[in-house]
């Protein structure tokens, strides 16, 4: 870990002014990913700006749009009665995230921005286009078991490792983002970039922008949603494959479906083909299987992660059956 300076930002304005303008300073909130990246020499920022004192904590779920402050700890979101009632999908995803200790520390905003677990990104002594642009992607023809089957190229096939982001995307979340000029609202779906030519750029946030809240629209999916996470060991592991299924039902018919997959994409991956297959049709075991089989459409697996295609197909099927209450 290289030396760095540190300061607690008392106000958002201070925090933003310290980070903007190419200073390469980094915000730190829960620290659960930043500390790993620092310890392993993956990042070496000159300065850390502690944003924990900013007034972005807390959950409001009374009515209409729910608001989750970006500094709310994952465990507090998962334990919030309003969230538990209205967004069980999110609670399920959070309960399967990391460990209880990490959930007590990690923040909603930080978790949205956690970096990939790609083995080559996390070892600072080997090439990685994301960590060291232009150095190559050893994962492409190497150890890519945990890497993405969607959205990658020979530049980068690092998978987004998140659980919460997958659930939030299925819940059609928006973000509030603050910068020196003020606040803007954006769709969570627009947060993540494809790696394309520049895998080092992971989000559409500009330098000096800060996520301050997650906004969740009211939906009718609470009774018909499910987060399914498949992993090697029974707990404390990132997803090999995960599926967030949020169904709004009209009787037995699927009125609206949002199906998002984790562990498989370079960003949380919305499965549009699956959603289309479900749209307006009665949810039956056959439909769930057919829709699940569409989940692999467009996948470009590598040698080490080809298993994710059938795993994802069956995970979607299972999530639909469970969400629909016909499992």
């Amino acid at each position: 870990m290289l030396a760095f300076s540190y300061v607690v930002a008392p106000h958002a304005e201070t925090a933003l002014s310290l980070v903007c303008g190419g200073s390469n300073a980094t915000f730190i909130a829960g620290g659960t990913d930043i500390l790993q990246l620092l310890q392993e020499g993956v990042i070496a920022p000159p300065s850390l700006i502690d944003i924990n004192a900013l007034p972005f904590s807390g959950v409001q779920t009374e009515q209409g749009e729910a608001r989750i402050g970006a500094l709310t700890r994952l465990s507090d979101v998962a334990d919030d009665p309003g969230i538990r009632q209205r967004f069980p999908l999110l609670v399920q995803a959070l309960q399967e995230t990391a460990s209880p200790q990490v959930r007590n520390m990690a923040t909603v905003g930080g978790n949205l921005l956690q970096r990939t677990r790609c083995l080559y990104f996390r070892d600072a002594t080997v090439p990685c286009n994301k960590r060291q642009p232009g150095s190559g992607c050893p994962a492409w023809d190497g150890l890519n078991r945990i890497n993405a089957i969607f959205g990658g190229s020979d530049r980068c096939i690092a998978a987004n490792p998140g659980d919460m982001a997958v659930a939030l995307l299925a819940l059609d979340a928006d973000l509030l983002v603050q910068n020196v000029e003020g606040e803007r609202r954006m769709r969570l779906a627009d947060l993540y970039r494809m790696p394309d030519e520049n895998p080092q750029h992971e989000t559409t946030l500009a330098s000096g922008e800060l996520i301050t809240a997650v906004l969740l629209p009211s939906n009718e999916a609470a009774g018909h949603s499910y987060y399914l996470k498949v992993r090697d060991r029974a707990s404390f592991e990132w997803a090999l494959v995960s599926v967030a299924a949020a169904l709004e039902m009209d009787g037995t018919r699927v009125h609206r479906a949002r199906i998002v997959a984790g562990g498989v994409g370079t960003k949380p991956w919305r499965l549009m083909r699956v959603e289309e297959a479900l749209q307006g049709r009665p949810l039956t075991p056959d439909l769930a299987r057919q829709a699940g089989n569409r989940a692999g459409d467009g996948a470009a697996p590598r040698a080490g992660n080809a298993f994710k295609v059938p795993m994802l197909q069956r995970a979607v099927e299972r999530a639909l059956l469970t969400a629909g209450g016909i499992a």
Partner: protein
Amino acid sequence: MDSQGPLPSTPASRFDIGLIVNGTSHRLAVDARTTLLDALRDRLHLTGTKRGCDLGQCGACTVLLEGRRINACLTLAVMVHGRAITTIEGIATDGELHPMQTAFVQHDAFQCGYCTPGQIMSAIGLLNESRTTDEATIREHMSGNICRCGAYTNIVAAVRDAAARGS
């Protein structure tokens, strides 16, 4: 500066911080990069909090931050300036072991003993969270603490026992 005093308002790389550890206020000089784990072990010589991975992946460094379990290795010491930390050294009272400590001994919930302080602090965190209703819940919510000697079933038995005694 007392242990509650403010930190400098401009970026710095050295700090005099205050930590309230097991009810005692300590003042110490740390780097910005000093983790809470290093501060406890190397500065305060409270080595009951163990280093296993420095990456939040093993749970050996689990302590309570104002009653909630966290990984001391994933926290910069300066980030918890002025706050109350409980470590394994702080849970026995007047020489009497905490019920969780007693239960760990009775159920042989460890072998080498190295992950044990983290397991116990995590288990106390679990008690505080009221998540000791059944074995499956305990197993899931104790999964942030790796025991390489494989004492898991005895750990679950110890947690159940301590929870029952507490209730």
